């Protein structure tokens, strides 16, 4: 096990007042530098798994370790990008991105340079630094959310369906951006999605969760990079991988629906 490995052991999470475990007996190891997509039907516990790794939710039983140390709460080495943009609306874009740096007591001048560097890294013009989040489009806000999560140079980037609310074109641009940032800065990425094509396009390995909140399968992605959205179907292994993932997902979806009815 290397320093950046995430190890999830016999993880179960049951929320107070619920008679069903959201995640149940889940085991997973994520290698340092991996780009892992977590796929699964709605309600299977994908986001809960991410929240436990982030330290937001405590396991009912089992454990999560990061670099050999047990995760007991949030930490700056694990950056999080949320499902909807959670920028502070009262603060400028610069203050949002610089929040982590302020928390780390980085001097003002160094903070300013780092903010400019991060804004450029996520493909935005320097003019946005003084703007307020409400003045920007959804895609721009999500770019700033990513820049903010990267400010601490985290070793892990946890992303919870971050592009679900964006239009197709912007979503593809954001997927390219995340892959580029992953290739350039090299954090381990755990990316929760319900979109099979998104998982195939960006991840190096894909985990499918079943309706009981355990791992149904863990597949490596054989498609070479780059993987342009418009030419995904031209890759040799694309159809087989897509079919396999759909079969797994549809099996889980049927089981979940039957479970709910029962």
């Amino acid at each position, binding site marked *: 096990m290397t320093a950046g490995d995430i190890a999830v052991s016999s993880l179960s999470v049951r929320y107070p007042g619920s008679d069903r475990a959201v995640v149940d007996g889940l085991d997973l190891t994520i290698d340092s530098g991996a780009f892992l997509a977590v796929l699964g039907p709605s309600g299977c516990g994908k986001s809960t798994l991410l929240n436990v790794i*982030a*330290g*937001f939710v405590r396991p009912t039983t089992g454990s999560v370790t990061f670099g050999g140390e047990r995760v007991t*709460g*949030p*930490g*700056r080495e*694990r*950056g*999080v990008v*949320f499902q909807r943009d*959670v920028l*502070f*609306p*009262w*603060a400028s874009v610069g203050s949002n991105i610089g*929040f*982590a740096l*302020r*928390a*780390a007591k980085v001097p003002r001048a160094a903070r300013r340079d780092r903010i400019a560097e991060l804004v450029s890294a996520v493909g935005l013009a320097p003019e946005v630094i003084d703007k*307020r*989040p*409400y003045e920007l489009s959804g895609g721009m806000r999500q770019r700033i959310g990513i820049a*903010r*999560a990267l*400010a*601490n140079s985290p070793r892990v980037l946890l992303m919870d369906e971050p592009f679900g609310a964006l239009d197709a074109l912007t979503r593809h641009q954001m997927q390219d951006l995340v892959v580029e940032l992953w290739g350039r800065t090299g954090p381990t990425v755990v990316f929760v999605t319900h979109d099979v094509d998104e998982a195939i396009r960006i991840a190096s390995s894909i985990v499918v969760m079943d309706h009981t909140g355990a791992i149904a399968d863990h597949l490596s992605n054989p498609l070479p990079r780059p993987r342009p959205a418009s030419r995904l179907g031209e890759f040799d292994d694309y159809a087989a991988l897509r079919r396999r993932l759909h079969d797994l997902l549809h099996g889980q979806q049927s089981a979940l629906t039957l479970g709910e009815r029962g």
Partner: protein
Amino acid sequence: MVSAPARGSGALRSSGVPTAAARLPGSVVAERPRRDRRDIARTALLAALPVLSLIAVVVGWDAAVRLEIFSDRLLPAPATVVHAAAEMYSDGTLFADAAASFRRALQGFVVGSVIAVVLGALTGRSRIARGLLEPVIQIVRPIPAIALVPLAILWFGIGEESKLFLTSLGVFFPVWVNTHAGIAATRDDYLRVAASLGASKLLTFATVVLPGALPSVLTGLRQGIATSLILIVAAEQSGVTEGLGFRLDQARLFSQPDRLFVCLAALGIVGAVADQLFHQATRRTVRWAKEQS
């Protein structure tokens, strides 16, 4: 409004260039100037409405006095009130009374608001503080502050202290309720962001919780301004020789309805000015809340 003629066909006509659109009577471009004139008329009417409303009230009031619907001992004519105001202004009582009331209201507002914001922040964030303080506050809250005038006099005498106690207490409740509600409603995902970015509890409170609650806190403070002025009038009915509340009571005692109306108008003006000054000074800080909703 200024740019409207340049955009419409009016500009085209003045340049002497006839266009197909301008020649067509039913075309969108040909209709534009009429719509612009209607817009200007509507805007001018909306701007004039407050003035018209005030004029209507004064004219109606004057007519009611002239037609002897009300006795001038109960309702003096507007001109009589203006004359009394001029008299009170020239002998210095109007300004001195307004300043004394404003100073007392401001003192009560500051003391009550500071305590309320601190306690609201505590009860909004801490379960222990909420458990300890909320029952006491909730029991005292329904008691009208005016009902506490006798208690205030018993505890603090008829001097300035009892006035400060009453106004502070009256201001405390709306500010506390709104601060508490705003702070307790801090979004969980904001707190999660702050935690994942390594922020300390103090930094999270100062840069996430407080700014997020600010629109609610400011609403409470604005209610507090109004409450402080209401209470200062009640508090000034005894134990002082200066203040609009005192002057109102004197006008009642000596049957001077013209002076009574001057004091009421002064109270209205002081309240409206204080409210607008506060609103204008703070509205930029919470513009984000309006833009988001």
